[in-house]
């Protein structure tokens, strides 16, 4: 539990809330007390947005939908059914979760800009709907008796206390998410959804959980907002400004961080409300201008938000060094185990067309356990498409694919990872601001139920690649070689029996290549069979047991390196027919 809610974080949350409450006690007039109450409410909305969009990278411009639904639910339950908001708000929260799922399920099928547009439309539809239903303005009548039971207080500071309570709860939830596999999985999705899938992250499920949780908290904020203002209109709770605030506050403060929304709310809301109070009469809408300018300035000057900007200014990130002093390569502890007799991976007649062009055609080969197989071929030969089929990113148009006897055709990448196939990608997108261990952790979740076990597995993977003493280093400062090793560790953390390596040596110098190869060579002894795509031939020649050569989508040759590199067809494919003929001696 201490992991999820580190004592320091809990302390900070408590300290902030108490300090803010104290501020509320000190402030003399009701207006400022209201102002202070609004800050945590908007901060909670910001936290809810952050939970979903800040971590996953799927920008939602429609969070007003949840906020408004919460506001109306609480209000209507009170006004029509006499249900106290103490129960009404939890009900609204549940409704928020349901709304989140209802909106998320169809909308997640949309990519990028289409997703943003759809999210924008939802609260607008709700505005028109509620307007039409005659709910243009619903006010909450004052309760004479048992006012506290109906969450109505004479002293506005009571609302402040409740709002801070809600903020504390949401920050605690946010912290728990951030420190658990929930947060890391979302971040992985943000970095590179495809790579996350391939690492075993069930992206669909996590996104749905995130939006449901986000909806819950946003609805609760909306419900409380209704109780504070005592009147709801469609524009005030479903309007564009609400959705905009949900986006702006965390982005200003620092998207994807725990305190970002709070920083944003603490700075922008008082500023906006004060401007509105002082100048609102002859400059109506000044707060809107402020929000607009704030967002423009943030995007131009500090796109990751104030939190990161300040941290960067105080401790500038070191530039990534291009070369690193080469560590003495570890002596080979165990010799290569013999290659097994069985078939770990079988590819039969595999093909893939893209709009009439056959990228891969009728390719068949088998991989026994314990082998290191190299897939080579000139540019455009279909190697990457083959890999993408092996790990489920692309479905084959023809043929069969079996792993340990089980067909892989039609399985999603995270399911394939679950079965025991791991993959690295050419372009490593690391979580630049997190430690190497945290980066590798994502890969371990698929195979380990508890976070503690996952952490151990991650450490073991780091040891396998030789990075264990750098576990706490920040990923953004790594060299290319270290990044590659980290990517390898991430794939190993899921405990695969087959590992697909996609051009792991690209961009490495000679010494670095040696090191990486040494690491890869040790893997079969740990029970991992390797299939590797590479261009750098010399390294491969010394590393692999067998080559499979592709050319123009077809299997050209297959066999041990010494044999394959002398075959005329192979030489011709790489160097051209004329050269092959001219230098046939070989």
């Amino acid at each position, binding site marked *: 539990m201490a992991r999820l809610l580190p004592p320091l974080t809990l302390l900070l949350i408590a300290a902030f809330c108490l300090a803010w409450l104290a501020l509320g006690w000190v402030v003399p007039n009701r207006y400022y007390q209201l102002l202070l109450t609004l800050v945590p409410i908007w901060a909670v909305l910001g936290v809810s947005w952050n939970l979903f969009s800040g971590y996953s*990278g799927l920008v939602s411009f429609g969070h007003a939908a949840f906020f408004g639904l919460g506001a109306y639910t609480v209000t209507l339950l009170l006004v029509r059914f006499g249900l106290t908001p103490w129960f009404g708000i939890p009900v609204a929260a549940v409704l928020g979760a349901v709304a989140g799922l209802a909106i998320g399920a169809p909308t997640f099928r*949309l990519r990028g800009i289409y997703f*943003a547009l759809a999210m924008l439309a*939802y609260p607008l539809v709700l505005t*028109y709907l509620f307007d*039409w239903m005659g709910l243009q303005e619903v006010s909450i009548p004052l309760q004479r008796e048992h006012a506290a039971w109906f969450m109505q207080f004479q002293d506005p500071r009571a609302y402040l206390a409740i709002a801070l309570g809600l903020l504390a709860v949401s920050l605690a939830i946010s912290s728990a998410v951030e420190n658990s596999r929930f947060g890391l999985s979302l971040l992985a999705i943000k970095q590179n959804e495809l790579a996350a899938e391939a690492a075993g992250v069930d992206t669909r499920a996590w996104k749905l959980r995130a939006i449901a949780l986000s909806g819950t908290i946003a609805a609760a904020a909306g419900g409380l907002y209704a109780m504070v203002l005592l009147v709801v209109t469609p524009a005030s709770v479903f309007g564009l400004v609400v959705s905009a605030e949900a986006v702006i506050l965390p982005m200003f403060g620092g998207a994807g961080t725990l305190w970002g929304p709070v920083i944003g709310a603490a700075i922008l809301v008082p500023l906006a409300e004060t401007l509105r109070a002082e100048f609102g009469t002859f400059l109506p*809408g000044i707060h809107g201008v402020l929000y607009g300018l704030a967002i*423009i300035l943030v995007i131009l000057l500090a*796109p990751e938000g104030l939190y990161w900007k300040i941290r960067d200014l105080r401790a500038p990130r070191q530039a990534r060094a291009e070369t690193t002093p080469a560590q003495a390569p570890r002596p080979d502890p165990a010799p290569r185990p013999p290659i097994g007799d069985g078939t770990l991976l079988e590819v039969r007649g595999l093909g893939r067309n893209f709009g*009439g062009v056959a990228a891969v055609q009728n390719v068949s080969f088998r991989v026994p356990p314990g082998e290191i197989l190299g897939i080579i071929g000139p540019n455009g030969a279909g190697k990457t498409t083959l890999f993408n089929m092996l790990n489920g990113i692309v479905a084959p148009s023809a043929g069969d694919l079996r792993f340990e006897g089980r067909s892989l055709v039609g399985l999603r990448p995270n399911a394939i990872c679950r079965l025991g196939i791991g993959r690295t990608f050419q372009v490593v997108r690391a979580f630049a601001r997190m430690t190497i261990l945290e980066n590798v952790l994502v890969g371990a979740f698929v195979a380990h139920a508890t976070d503690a076990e996952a952490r151990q597995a991650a450490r073991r993977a780091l040891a396998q690649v030789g990075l264990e003493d750098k576990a706490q280093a920040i990923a953004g400062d790594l060299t290319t070689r270290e990044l590659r090793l980290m990517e390898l560790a991430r794939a190993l953390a899921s405990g695969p029996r087959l590992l697909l390596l996609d051009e792991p040596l690209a961009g490495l110098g000679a010494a670095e290549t040696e090191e990486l190869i040494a690491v890869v060579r040790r893997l079969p002894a740990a029970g991992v069979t390797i299939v590797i795509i590479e261009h750098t031939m010399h390294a491969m020649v010394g590393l692999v047991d067998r080559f499979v050569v592709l050319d123009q989508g077809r299997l050209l040759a297959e066999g041990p390196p010494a044999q394959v590199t002398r075959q005329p067809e192979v030489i011709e494919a790489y160097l051209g027919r004329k050269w092959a003929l001219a230098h046939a001696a070989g």
Partner: protein
Amino acid sequence: MSAAAFIEQAAQALTAGILVGCVYGLLCVGLAFIFGIMRVINFAQGDFMMVGMYLAFFLTTNVLGTTLLGDATPFVAAALTIPVLFVLGGALHRLVIARTTGLRAVGLSAEGHQAQLILTLGIALVLQNGALILLGTSPHTVLTPLSSSAWEVPLLYAAFRAVFVNQARAIAALLSVVVAFALFRLVSSTRLGKSLRAAADNPEAATYMGIDVDRAHRIAFAIGTAVAGLAGGLIVAYYPVQPFVGVDFIIIMYAGVVLGGMGSISGAFWGGIVIGLVQQLSTLVMPLQLQNAAIFAAFVLILLFRPQGLFGRNVERA
């Protein structure tokens, strides 16, 4: 209601739909320039329209007066918004938007596209609320004799049944079609237009040709804003302007552009017409207030089931 009356109502709705749709079509074409060529979601597009509306209103009532140009005054005013908004759009692009697009965005995190989105949201907020400050909340319309005259087109199947075609709207629709067509020709036949398409198709190759992709984007953006302003100038003759009028139209524009298929200028125009028809025809079966809800619902459905639109171009090998 009798069948004859229903047919008359339907015909009226159809006419209204086409007239309104033509102007929506122009609006969509403006957005298509920006969306199709730069792949930027411009949240502020409706607000550029709003600026055009206010400008046209101001020009008509205070500057031009009704004596000199008579009935043509509002349309001349609308035309005058074009250069103003062209310059505004170009300046906005150079100063603000260009910093988040293209090669310059390489330094930003993976959220390049998101950055533009959010940036234009900020611009929208500034424009909306700035207008609120400067111009107040009371709605204004440019009312001319044309706004309240209509041609009566008798429907031949029954006596005393006719469709009323509002003159101001009819002229606005006609002008919209003309301008949309001119823009279509610009993009398809002129050297400049082709360079815009090339820059959208493959910015890297366009750079190798010596085409300044940044400048191409700026021109596209400026054209997009100018068109929004012009459409606004045409609309203000029959639709009142207030600072938040853009919000009403933004979904209409996006629905039309997505329906027409991204990157297709002509598709965007037809998309606008379809949306106009949906909006007006929906009044036959739904209460008036839900008109826009019908569009939004249609929009969401399009996004879910056919995001490539009706005319989404497929130029890959069959």
